[in-house]
């Protein structure tokens, strides 16, 4: 399981990345991240929805209440242009961290 801080820091890029696959709703978002992380990232609903609402307020994503196939109403989220720009920035930052750590850990792991 990841630390709380890392989960919190990675929420926005993860949400934006999942939404690039297509619009989705909160429950499916949590399931998708759980599936991709093989259960290592467990989001709680209490955490996710305020983040989604904040991202919407920031103009990164937009939402719409729509009737699903089951007949029940669901709130669907989709990424906006501003969200894609933000994701690009986030991606560069995370790749920078990843690349730095990889370089640091490569000789260590080989020395072990």
């Amino acid at each position, binding site marked *: 399981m990841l630390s709380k801080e890392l989960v919190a820091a990675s929420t926005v890029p993860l949400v934006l990345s999942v939404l690039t696959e297509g619009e989705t*709703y909160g*429950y499916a978002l949590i399931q998708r991240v759980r599936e991709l992380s093989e259960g290592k990232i467990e989001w*709680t*609903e*209490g955490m996710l*929805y*305020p983040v989604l609402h904040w991202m919407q307020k920031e103009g990164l994503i937009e939402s719409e209440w729509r009737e699903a196939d089951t007949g029940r109403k*669901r709130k669907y989220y989709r990424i906006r242009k501003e969200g894609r720009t933000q994701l690009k920035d986030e991606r560069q930052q995370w790749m920078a961290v990843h690349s730095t750590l990889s370089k640091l850990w490569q000789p260590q792991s080989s020395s072990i």
Partner: protein
Amino acid sequence: MDGRSLNALKIMAASIEFNLNDAFRLWREQLSQSPHFRPENLDELESHLRDSVTVLQSKGLSADEAFLIGTRRVGKDAALEEQFAAENGGRGWRDTAWRLIHRYGNKVIHLLIVLYFTIGCFFVWGCGQIARMIHPIEPGRGLPGFTVLVCGLTRFWYVLPVLSAFYVGYVWFRKGGSSRSWFGFFAATTGCLVLLGLPTLVALLLPLIDFLNSLPHWLKEHTPPQ
């Protein structure tokens, strides 16, 4: 399977569905007690919980089990409230007003009731004083005994507003702000006002009736003969 068994199964299924809906309604009602959840937040959380319960039921869990696990996954009420409070915390005067009402509403209503009760008692006391001021026009005839009795007692009527003020002090400083006890207090004070007001009204009417009854006789005596 015969028709009756099928019907029984249908009734059982309907009953389970009804219970589940009832559980959703109660869960939502519990969350809606908090000022930190907007109706749209509750709609979204309920939709999420319904999705979660449907998936759990499809895995073979009963409605009760699925609901129990689903609500646990959504999180404890306090934790959810904390997260949504952070989100909805600084959204202008309406939220602030709602939080203040939630926190102090019951206490402020108590204050208003004690004010209303004090004014009411003062008004009833005033009626008692008016009754005392009515002098019979027939010489030697005093005020009716009931009026004298009630007018004599009105001097003690300040005790009730003082007692109610003490109770409001207790509500403000000792009692939890979330309990909605103002309705009982309002009923009690209104009942007291009725109990005080009715005898005072009678005490006021008796000398008035006396006065009106003796008026023709008095006029006859004091009208100069033609």
